[in-house]
């Protein structure tokens, strides 16, 4: 009979066997675009002008010095911060609510996930109908409630980015909420009773008992929402096409514009890699900040 050593090796080999299809597939389909687009970003490839010369870092320099990039960066950050803060706070709130016992909780829990199941482009269509300045439902609602006297525009150059961020939050929050709910349900009930006996009020109970259990899901949701918010393109694409003018031209949309509108593949690729660098940087910062050992 073979010894323990043999078993462990063949367990690992067996593991390799199981994951080989995955690895092969992923190598082909992810390494290739990464390499290709990085290669393109070093050239001044432009399909319309039919150029394809190696230009080194010229594209990147253009990206960093162009005012369009600055505008898009600013918009992306505003969008991201709005979305992350809103969806995390709202998500925690929803999770706390759904953790309580009440009549109809199952129904509410089932319905709450719906916005996430609805595609971004459908959200864009829905929210366009809500924000519309002539016949939109938000206008109608606010006017009937007496909050405004006249129909007004919401997707204006100044506020469009926030309007889009709210629509995105509506779509995205349920995912975070369910992560948080999962964590909440792992909290042992007697810790709460203990804290109550010790005289802790609601908020203190949350801070001392609940929060440590949520640290993990908080990190996941925060990182996930940062990454998603910075890459969000569908919603902006269908709802505002970059906004009144360029008022919602977030970075992914700018990449789209550079790549497809002017066929400057090199420039678009360099912008995309810059965005990726930004995402990696932010993710790393968040990861480090949120996984500090106590």
């Amino acid at each position, binding site marked *: 009979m073979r010894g323990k050593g043999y078993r462990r090796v063949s367990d690992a080999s067996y593991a390799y066997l199981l994951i*080989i299809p995955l690895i092969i597939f992923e190598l082909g389909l992810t390494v290739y675009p990464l390499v290709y687009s990085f290669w393109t970003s070093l050239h001044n490839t432009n399909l319309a002008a039919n150029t394809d010369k190696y230009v080194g870092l010229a594209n990147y320099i253009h990206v960093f010095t162009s005012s369009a990039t600055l505008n898009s960066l600013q918009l992306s950050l505003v969008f991201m911060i709005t979305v992350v803060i809103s969806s995390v706070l709202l998500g925690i709130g929803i999770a706390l609510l759904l953790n309580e016992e009440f009549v109809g909780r199952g129904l509410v829990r089932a319905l709450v996930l719906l916005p996430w199941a609805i595609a971004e482009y459908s959200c864009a269509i829905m929210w366009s109908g809500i924000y519309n*300045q002539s016949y939109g439902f938000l206008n109608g609602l606010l006017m009937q409630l007496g909050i405004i006297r006249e129909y007004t525009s919401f997707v204006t150059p100044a506020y469009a980015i926030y309007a889009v961020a709210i629509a995105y939050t509506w779509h995205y929050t349920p995912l975070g909420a369910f992560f948080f709910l999962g964590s909440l349900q792992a909290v042992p009930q007697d810790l709460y009773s203990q804290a109550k006996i010790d005289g802790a009020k609601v908020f203190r109970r949350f801070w001392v008992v609940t929060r440590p259990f949520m640290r993990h899901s908080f990190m996941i949701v925060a990182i996930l929402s940062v990454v998603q918010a910075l890459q969000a393109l569908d919603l902006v694409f269908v709802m505002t096409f970059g906004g009144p003018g360029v008022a919602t031209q977030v970075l992914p949309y700018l990449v789209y514009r550079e790549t497809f509108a002017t066929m400057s593949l090199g420039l678009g690729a360099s912008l995309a890699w810059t965005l990726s660098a930004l995402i990696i940087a932010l993710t790393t910062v968040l990861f480090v900040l949120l996984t500090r050992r106590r």
Partner: protein
Amino acid sequence: MTEKKQETQDISRRKYLKYVAAGVVAVAAVGGGAYYYSTMPPTPAPTATATPTMTATATATETGTTFTGPNQPPLYFDIWLALPDIVKMNMDNFNAQNNETGQVSVVSGDYTSVVETKLISKSKIDMVFGTPVQAVRWYKAGWLNSVDEGPHYSDIVKDIYPWVVDLMEQPQGGHLGWPYFVGGDVLHTNDKMLGQMLGRTPEASDYPKTWDDVLNQCREAKQKGLSNQPFLPEWYAWLGGLPSYIQVQCYSEGEFLFDKNFDPTFDVNTPFADVLTNWKAFVDEGLAPTSEFATTEAEHIAAFCTGKYLYSVQRDYDCYSFNDPTKSKMAGYSHIVYPMPGRTHDAAALIGGLFLISNNKFFDRDAWQSFRHFRLIEHFAWKDKNGNYAAKNYQNVFPVWMGYPSMNNDPATRALWVSKGWMSADDFDNNTKMIEGTKVPPVYKGCIWFQEWLIGSGGVNDLVPQVMSGKIKVDECVTTLRALAVDLKNKYS
């Protein structure tokens, strides 16, 4: 039991070795493939074109050629989503009358990139729709065929509006295509609100004569509490929106933006700046909604149907929606202002869509295949074998004007449209007059970068909304756009 366990483990090990060997080979292949693709030049390889297996027999005579040949491969006609049933009806007629195999397919999504991809890769594309600014680029790239070579070219020229022929003429020679409809953006009224404002039924003389008149009447409407934002400009972010509207207003002020050499004629002291200032006044006084910049064409139409606006710039055929009681709150009250407000009242009925055929030479077509293509486009763009205008079928279901005076002056058409409640008889006559008297902006004759100047990065579509929101000044915008035009011209020459 031990032996059985060993057996299964042995078998696993053998299987494992086989799989690993296969896996290593696969990874190497994929890795090599990835490396190969990453060093590929960016242009995709063209696919081979189908070559006919039979040569055509041609008997040339003085009055025409009687060609026969195989009706393969099928003729592919790509359209955008506009009255596809009529197009299919016309294609069925074409197939029946000529024993042909034409196919219509609707392209949804980004029409331009789909068509351009097909043109570049020479795949299954024989006739397409196109706007003039798109078509010019495709023609310059050599993907489109001049319609001059069609057998009925001179007949069509005699029949069509002269300005159409002028507009289609390209500097390098040849004519771009034939319109499938003509018409442009016009100023529509809401006579219900106008009547409330004036205290009596509005007449044609009450309509604004200049764009400042529009501004003043809107001020009055707001002051009288009739509307919060009385003006609905066509500012949506597609070619037919802001870029179209700005041209309409500039042309009506006599400003044609570019001369025949495509040099900019506008500057800070020209009507172009006046147009922007006029628009800014609407925004600053709260007379027009800035959210219009981010809307869509369908929403723009529905917005005017609310009846909350006094005036709106819309496509001429959209009176179809404005006067429909199931769609609009002001049904029966919307009219078209004629003549076009502005200093010179010049209208340039920008051709809405063209029939374009792909280049016979580029696609390696022989004489027979080329003949099939011209037969196709001339059927659709002009008359079928029985001498009836194919486009008549459009006019039976939708109020869209055509490129032929005989079609637009047909009293039967006018009676039909009026009876369906789409417009009044006066509107019909007025718009026909506007189309007849259309001017031809020189920039449409061969300028391949006009579309980029309009909707490209840093172009009109990007900058004008920023002027309206106060981010940049009118003068700054005009000078930037002027510099951009000069840059683009240099870039593409």
